[in-house]
């Protein structure tokens, strides 16, 4: 009864999950390996003839300032993923911690955390992002990740809180208390392992939310101006009217890549949902 082989068997049955993970894996491979095969110089302004449609030399054409779009894409992908994954990890840690504390401590601690997450859900994330971004001197990839993370921890916090609340009442937690287990050990040894599927599912959703916020912020022109990211590429395309001018190769590739990432995330999340629920049903 290896946990790995049961996961492999699940993948074979769960086509949605498989497809989603494959899409994400492809994107990640491209992002990790791609930069080794391109010439960074081609991503600088004026490196090539501007506004050229795709040619054998420039597979994805060039943008309005003479950047080779293929190189731009290869270099932008890891940056965007970095923001998404960093933001996802930060907000997941915050969310899981808050959710566990709220679910376990109860009382006023729970009330405060729940209220905070309700309020954060109400205030449109983009509004705060805009305010912060408009107030910082220079946006960087790291700062972007932190800002986005502060706005996407609520989903994880809510899910984990709800699960913790129900796990807390489970017989085995009570038995563990009778066995002299208490405090953090109770949380980490008895509760956390059973939350793993939910944490994994929350991670996917959190990364997805973080990427959505990132791309949106960048497309508004509030992203890191001096870095290549997928969202900034769209911003510049929009800024120079690439759509109206029919320069589809400028905005097409970033859109397709972003769409692929989001579809991959959604399929993974949907696949995980049925996986997680089935595990629960089996109990």
């Amino acid at each position, binding site marked *: 009864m290896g946990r790995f082989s049961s996961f492999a068997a699940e993948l074979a049955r769960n086509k949605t999950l498989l497809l989603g993970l494959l899409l994400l894996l492809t994107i990640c491979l491209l992002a990790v390996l791609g930069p080794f095969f391109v010439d960074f110089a081609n991503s600088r302004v004026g490196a090539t003839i501007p506004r050229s449609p795709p040619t054998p030399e420039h597979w994805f054409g060039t943008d309005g300032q003479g950047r080779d779009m293929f190189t731009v894409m290869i270099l932008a992908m890891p940056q965007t993923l970095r923001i998404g994954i960093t933001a996802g990890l930060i907000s997941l840690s915050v969310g899981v911690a808050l959710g566990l504390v709220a679910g376990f401590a109860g009382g006023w601690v729970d009330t405060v955390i729940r209220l905070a997450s309700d309020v954060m859900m*109400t205030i*449109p994330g*983009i509004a705060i992002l805009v*305010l912060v971004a408009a107030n910082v001197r220079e946006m960087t990839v790291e700062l972007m990740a932190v800002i986005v993370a502060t706005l996407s921890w609520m989903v994880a916090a809510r899910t984990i809180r709800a699960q913790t609340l129900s796990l807390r009442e489970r017989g085995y937690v009570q038995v563990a208390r009778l066995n002299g287990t208490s405090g953090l050990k109770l949380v980490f040894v008895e509760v956390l392992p059973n939350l793993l599927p939910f944490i994994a599912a929350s991670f996917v959703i959190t990364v997805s939310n973080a990427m959505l916020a990132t791309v*949106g912020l960048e497309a508004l022109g509030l992203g890191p101006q001096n870095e290549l990211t997928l969202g900034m590429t769209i911003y510049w395309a929009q800024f120079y009217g690439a*759509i109206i001018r029919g320069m589809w190769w400028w905005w097409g590739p970033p859109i397709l890549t972003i*769409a692929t990432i989001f579809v991959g995330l*959604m399929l993974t999340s949907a696949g995980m949902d049925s996986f997680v629920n089935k595990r629960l049903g089996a109990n």
Partner: protein
Amino acid sequence: MTANYWDYVARRFGIMLLVVFLAVSINFALPRLMPGDPIENQLNQLMASGGGAMGDVGAMVASYRARFGLDQSIVTQYLAYWQSVFSLDLGFSLTNYPERVGDAILAGLPWTLGLLGFATLVSFTVGTLLGGLMGWPRSPRLLKSFGSGVLLLSSVPYFLIGMILLYFFAVVFRIFPAGGGMPFGMSAGFNLETIRAIAWHATLPLLSIIIAEIGAWAIGMRGMMVSVLGEDYIALADAKGLRPRRIFLRYGMRNALLPQMTKLAMALGHIVSGAILVEVIFSYPGIGFRLYQAIQSKDYFVVQGIVLLLSVSIAIAMFILDLIYPLIDPRIAKGK
């Protein structure tokens, strides 16, 4: 309605007040938390980027400093800020001086409300119905596979769909206009022609939101429908010999709709965020586009004003949805 209902309303109202309070406070605090003098920072940045026709910067700085009392204590400043919020006096636009921020927002508001209201209404209704049917075992197979395609689109941000629609329907085929709220130079009046022109211009932005949003509602509803159909009361309704239509609507949809309403309240912020970018793509004259322009030209007070308005109106909209909720779910008023 019972006393419990009013308890519930009071609680929800409290949360709304809290959100408004926080939104105003964040708006107040953020610029002051940043290093340096906020007014000078903004104006200097403005000067550096050379955006907008500027008068005497020194005089403007002085007027703003006096206005916000930046030399006074933080408490006084805070109270003054609340006063200006209550009197809806949000200051002047920096780039389009002497346009007032309030007026700038008011000019954009009807466009945004119309766009968002219509798109949300259509996508929520159609998506919910589609999702319900997709979760109903008697639905035709064709509908289910069509639905699955729509579901995939739901994960893509609205404005990306907007860009694709814009390219094909406005640039390549030239069926719809490429941007704006209505034709240049057309004077608005309450007549058929104006309405037609407005609808014509709004079609693509609306479609961008609706296409992406339908899937999101359908996914949620399908999941809820499937779990509701597993409930004992559906089995008993079937045993009672009720007509499938009645079981679907009165026993299935009605119950699956409840969490969907909660999600609508939760999703408002997300929808508004997405719609802002759609306005940008289509140069649609709503407050989203205005926000984008303000960010471009570093028109700080307009940015602040719009953000404040968005936060407050979403809080109010959520409160209204909260009021409606007990009317469709009798259990809520009992309170948990």
